[in-house]
């Protein structure tokens, strides 16, 4: 009946309006404010955190935090940029009490040279601060620690986004535009902030399609031919804040620790983004200047945080996300029930019925998931049970462990004996999807994988190492020097599939 009335509606409107042709469909009466209730906030959305011993200088550690995921390189004229009203932070716990001891705060300032054009640039950009670059961003970094707040750099330029071959030629992007913006810190460290190619890699298309993993497609409940994975974030850019710090600047004793089994050797970090509260109304102040001052001095609210890859995104249920993002890791205990009974694990016997069943899938709970407890307490990166740290969603690196330890650096990192990578920190090339899928499936657990991916899943001829999305590296490989995360993809070459990745010299 409703439908009939609507058809009548359309007809009558068309008749009444004579010359107007009107489509059916207007019951959306208008007279109230329907501002969106749920809004995306990519500018303050922390997508990845990396932390690793510097591969070139054993006295340094690098920390990179990415924001604004899935940027399309041809996203002009309004290219993605840092938020002037967002506080980006890298938070460090260096004495193992899970409370932040050192925070590096980044604040950005956007300068628009000519507000009457929508163009990002009005000619080729030859250098940072080029007059042709209409939209520029500058930033200030402060370090907050027990001694107070210190400004490390101010008005530091960011490079332009990689607009395209005419505006920002790829051959010289890194040397002329990006590298000159790297700032020096008073302690000998370095800082960078700007557009980068995303180093993350994952087959979202298949995983989203009922946890499909293309390399083992035939074992799925709804089988498909096996194939390699497809990188869903290929050729996309992010915005990165990056620090290269002397290890002695961030350890609790101010030294470069050498004892692997010591709490003082472990640095725990998480990245975050905060926005400012505002006072809806001023308190009866009539003068507009005072009113503005009162309004703009609200406290900061953390709206996004990231430590160990996967924890926030997959293990924390939707209804708790606002709370999770606003919580500091010292209060993470309330979420451990969700973390220690991971839902993806429970899904395995549902979709991979040919491989997983109730007896070879690890049950959840603290008693059964000692491996996840070890992960959260630093025991997987060199600490003995006696020195275990309180559990928290912190990405931890044991700086007494060399950058590459024993075996050649490889994407499966510690799963293949390379303790220089995840979960001992996280390098740009670590395949955290495959590592975590195998861990969730039980590769580390006694009675299941027993710590060796070559072992078969009990009762099957399938090794744990077969579990993976088939995407093993990002489109661009890391640079050989700081900031390591690769040159951003350019807008001009973006629409052409199959263009070789732009890797800077």
């Amino acid at each position: 009946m409703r439908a009939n009335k609507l058809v009548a509606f359309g007809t009558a409107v068309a008749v009444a309006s004579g010359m107007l042709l009107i489509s059916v469909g207007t019951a959306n009466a208008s007279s109230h404010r329907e501002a969106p209730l749920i809004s995306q906030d990519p500018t303050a959305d922390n997508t990845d955190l990396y932390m690793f011993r510097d591969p070139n200088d054993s006295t340094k550690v690098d920390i990179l935090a990415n924001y604004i995921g899935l940027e399309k390189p041809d996203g002009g004229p309004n290219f993605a940029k840092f938020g002037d009203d967002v506080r980006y932070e890298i938070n460090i716990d260096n004495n193992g009490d899970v409370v932040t001891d050192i925070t590096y705060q980044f604040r950005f300032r956007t300068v628009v040279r000519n507000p009457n054009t929508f163009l990002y640039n009005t000619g080729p950009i030859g250098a940072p601060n080029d007059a042709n670059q209409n939209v520029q961003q500058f930033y200030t970094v402060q370090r907050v620690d027990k001694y107070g707040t210190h400004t490390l750099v101010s008005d530091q330029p960011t490079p332009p986004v990689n607009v395209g071959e005419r505006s920002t030629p790829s051959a010289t992007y890194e040397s002329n535009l990006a590298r000159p913006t790297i700032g020096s810190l008073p302690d000998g460290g370095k800082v960078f902030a700007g557009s980068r190619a995303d180093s993350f890699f994952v087959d979202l298309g298949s995983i989203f399609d009922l946890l499909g993993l293309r390399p083992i497609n035939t074992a799925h409940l709804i089988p498909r031919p096996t194939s390699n994975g497809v990188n869903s974030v290929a050729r996309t850019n992010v915005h990165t804040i990056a620090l290269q710090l002397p290890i002695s600047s961030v350890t609790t004793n101010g030294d470069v620790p050498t004892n692997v089994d010591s709490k003082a050797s472990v640095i725990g970090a998480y990245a975050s983004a905060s926005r400012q509260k505002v006072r809806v109304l001023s308190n009866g102040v009539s003068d507009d200047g005072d009113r503005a001052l009162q309004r703009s001095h609200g406290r900061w609210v953390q709206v996004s945080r990231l430590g160990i890859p996967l924890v926030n995104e997959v293990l924390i249920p939707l209804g708790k996300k606002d709370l999770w993002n606003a919580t500091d890791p010292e209060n993470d205990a309330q979420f451990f029930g969700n973390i220690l009974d991971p839902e993806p694990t429970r899904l395995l016997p549902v979709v991979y019925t040919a491989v997983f069943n109730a007896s070879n899938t690890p049950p959840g709970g603290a008693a059964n998931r000692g491996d996840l407890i070890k992960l959260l307490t630093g025991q997987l990166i060199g600490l003995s049970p006696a020195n275990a740290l309180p559990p928290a969603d912190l990405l931890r690196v044991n700086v007494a462990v060399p950058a590459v330890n024993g075996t050649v650096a490889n994407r499966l990192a510690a799963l293949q004996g390379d303790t220089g990578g995840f979960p001992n920190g996280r390098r740009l090339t670590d395949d955290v999807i495959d590592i975590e899928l195998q861990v969730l499936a039980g590769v580390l657990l006694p009675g299941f994988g027993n710590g060796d991916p070559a072992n078969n899943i009990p009762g099957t001829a399938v090794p744990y190492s077969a579990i993976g999305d088939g995407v093993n590296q990002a489109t661009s490989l890391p640079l050989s020097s700081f900031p390591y995360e690769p040159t951003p993809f350019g807008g001009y070459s973006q629409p052409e599939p199959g263009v070789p990745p732009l890797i800077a010299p």
Partner: protein
Amino acid sequence: MNKAASAALMGLVLMMVAPACGGDHLRARAPATLPFVSVDPASGSPTDRAIADAQKRLHLNANDDEARLALAVAFLQKVRETADPTLYLKAQGLLDDLASRRADNPTVIEARGTLALAQHRFEDALELGNEALRLAPDNATALGILVDANNELGRYDDALEATQRMVDTRPSLASYSRVSYARELRGDFPGAIEAMQQAVSSAGSTGGENLAYVETLLGQLLLTTGKVTAADRAFTAAEHAFPNFPAALAGHAQVLVARDQFSAAADVLTRVVKVQPLAQYAIAYGDALSASGRDHEAARAYELVDVISKLFQANGVRLDLETVLFDADHHPGNSAVDRARRALRDRPSGRAHDALAWNLYQVGSFDAAAKESQRALALGGRDPQEQFHAAAIAFAQGNRVNAIEHLRTVLTENPRFNARLIPKIASLARSLDLAMPKPLP
């Protein structure tokens, strides 16, 4: 791990519908009763992708409650983009079904609250918002539902409290835009503009319809305060964010009206009305035609308003306030006053008091009109149309002092906010020895 991945992996987590659900369920086909729509596979719109993904999951497992919820939420966003009301009914079907089985899921309740707001069932929305908040304390979405429902019900103190809690919990486009409205309602335009700029900036560069929506509101605030060039830029930005956004096109028409270019404004509004035949656009269209001397076309546009209004009511949609105001000007009389009183009962907001005031004025009940007008402006609002109504009513009462005060408010902002009212405002200004500013450049 990457948040992009999070969406996908959340997807698979969410598919853990019922631990007992075995393979047979996964293979079950979606029953014909599921309200699927066809989606252009080539569409790059995130909303279309969300619809397609949810439908795909439901095809595989008709009992996937999370996919049901995702589909309902995606439908609600799609109506924002297309104004296709059939999607409300589809969303309602999905949500009623979920409500019967997932009564304690705050996300389901929030989606039902959003739907109630869209259908102007504000009391229902208030109840649902409170229920969601009880289950998920300090959830920003639930607080947003309370803000909107309380504002429409005229409970401004409650709305203000919820607004402050919402922005304290999660500063975002959703909460900043509500902060802006709270300030606008109280006559603080600079503060409203500042908060709306924060809303715009927190949308980033990938905001789509949501960004277009707040850019348009920003443009309207700027235009109201006479900043025509900046307003025009905001409307253009809204169109960039979401091409052919009807409200942004209508904003451009308002800019043309402020510049006394009525015929050009009418040409823009023709397109708006074709895309989204809402009463407010048809009225603005008729007014622009009338102001440019195209009386025959204007009469047709006004006929269209009447048809829209009748058919909305035939479809059970509650009276909207534009229509009530339109009736005051075009069909004044006691039955129009009665309709205005009914609308006020449904939603005792300031705007509804204003609509009743103007209807009372048109039938010569000036004292009763003045009382309603005072209620409309009780919070200190400086809305130019409400201020003009107050000025005209005071003048009719012979209260020259009040008339001057209200009209001054109109004249210091942008008095050319409505093509039909411009000559009336100019004439009242002459009677009160006030200067009508020239059209804005």
